[in-house]
């Protein structure tokens, strides 16, 4: 393979609106995580333009990209990515520390976020003491605590059993409706797909199909 280049995405032209509950669906290597990372300003497109909340991702320097993520984006990962030595409270508090909220404000917002995900009784626990479902709910609380415009969830149910998967998906759907936060998932899990209101199928880095589910 050496230094040979690989094109992960080709000819993508997508627009997401406020409050969408959308998913990038496709098999491994279809480019869904790459696209999610570009939207999340963790990666930059080698060609073309990605505009997120009025910012051209390719033109942002590292500080501006960090600012965008800090203020407007929330991330939910397949393996939760919680800070292992911090308590549930501290994990959820972290984005607010970066935003320099006051202690009282942080406390109120953290408790609100933990209430959304039903974990107010676990604030002093540390991730190793929690189940997978609980860890993912902490990750959701952490992503949502600052009320971001956009939440990016990469295979959020891949490590969860069916019951926990439905639980976290219902939580996210509820937050999406109540707070009008846009959710974009990267997934190939049928359970996740069943919750999506917009399904974008990717194949070999191209959009194969983009369908919106009509609400009842």
């Amino acid at each position, binding site marked *: 393979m050496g230094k040979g280049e690989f094109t992960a995405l080709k000819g993508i032209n997508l627009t997401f609106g406020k409050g969408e509950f959308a998913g990038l669906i496709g098999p491994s290597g279809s480019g869904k*995580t790459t696209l999610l*990372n570009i939207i*999340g300003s*963790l*990666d930059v497109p080698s060609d073309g333009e990605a505009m997120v909340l009025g910012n051209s991702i390719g033109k942002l320097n*590292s*500080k501006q*990209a*960090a*600012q965008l*993520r*800090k*203020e407007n984006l929330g*991330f939910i*990962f397949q*393996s939760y*990515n*919680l*800070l*292992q*030595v*911090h308590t549930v409270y*501290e994990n959820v508090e*972290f*984005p607010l*520390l*970066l*935003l*320099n909220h006051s202690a009282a404000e942080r406390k109120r917002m953290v408790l609100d976020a933990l209430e959304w995900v039903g974990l107010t009784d676990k604030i002093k626990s*540390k991730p190793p003491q929690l189940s997978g479902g609980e860890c993912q709910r902490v990750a959701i609380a*952490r992503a949502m605590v600052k009320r971001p415009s956009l939440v990016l969830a990469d295979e959020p149910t891949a490590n969860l059993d069916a019951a926990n998967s439905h639980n976290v998906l219902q939580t996210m759907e509820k937050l999406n409706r109540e707070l009008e936060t846009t959710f974009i998932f990267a997934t190939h899990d049928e359970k996740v797909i069943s919750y999506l209101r917009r399904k974008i199928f990717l194949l070999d880095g191209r959009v194969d199909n983009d369908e919106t589910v009509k609400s009842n």
Partner: protein
Amino acid sequence: MTRPLNRTKSIAMKLAIKLAFRNLIGAGLRTWLNVIVLSFSYVIIIWMNGVMIGWEEQAKHDMTNWQIGGGQYWHQTYDPFDPFTLSESHAPVPSELTDAVAKGDIAPMLIVQGTLYPQGRMQSIAIKGIDPKQTVLSQPSHRLDTIVDGIPAIIGAMMAQDMALQKGDRVTLRWRDANGTFDAATVVIVDIFTTNVPAVESGQVYISLQKLQEMTLLPNHATTLTLKNNKVQTPEVDGWAIKTKDTLTKSVDDLIQTKTAGLSIFYFILLLLAMLAIFDTMVLSIFRRQKEIGTYVALGYTRHQVVGLFTVEGAMYSILAALVGAAYGLPFLAWQAKAGWTMPMDVSEFGMAIAQTLYPVYSLGLVVTTVLIVVLTTTIVSYWPSRKIAKMNPTEALRGKIQ
């Protein structure tokens, strides 16, 4: 613009400290092992430096009491390291200083070469004439007023051991007078004194100044004039050189400086071991915590801020070590300052002004300097591996795929 920027930096630093503290405490045993190793470095460096400073102070104190007083006049040709000049190194006590000598503020001493014959052996020595009534130096010169069948003499304990002499022993002493004529008499050892200053006893016999002046036909002559303290007036006197206390103790400063430089190698090795442990921890930490690093970036940190966070985390080992070191080090150092450190071997033959028990002396400067050096070194050692984070691809870090 500067004020908001500084405020932002200050907030970022506070946050980094807060997070680093949480991370370190959360890491448990790994943190405390590094902290304990590093705290040893603090305590041992401060203690050993304290011993050196204590030794220097003790050596200067003892030298002052036994050898140099508050400074000295030396006859212009006197060179303590050249015995061949000794026969010419004397002159009458200058008239400008006779009042001070009479008041006891200056102690004249005549030094001539001689030979001692302890138990049939021949030993070259320096005969030192000292006023029995002097109070400038600590030698028990008053013992020279003892009436015995011979010339009363006092010697140091190390000299007594070398010559196999004891109190009350009689021994033949030979000398040359001002005309070059040899003469001999019996001296009686009336006292043996103990001192930490080998320079005042090695190969030396003390007798009464007046007696020595009579023996050598050098009335009122002296080789050195020792001042009681540094308040005594020291006018320029023709034929005599003023030697200040600082000049005379320079040899001690040089010796301690040499010893301290030698000890620096030990400190370096000690610090190196502690730093290796921290470096190793940081390298392992960066490798093991890739996902965490990626998460920090995803949550809004720049990679350089993560480098800062990890550097602060490493540097914080030295802060925690200072606190832990203080917890057990302060009582230990205080106890040592009071009880002293008694060296396991006999130091009397070391040939330097050193006491058997050394009392460490600590200064704020010593503590602050040690803490600053350790904190700075730890910060550099932590920053070094942390720079790798700046080159990490956050998406790969998030997946923990960096090798």
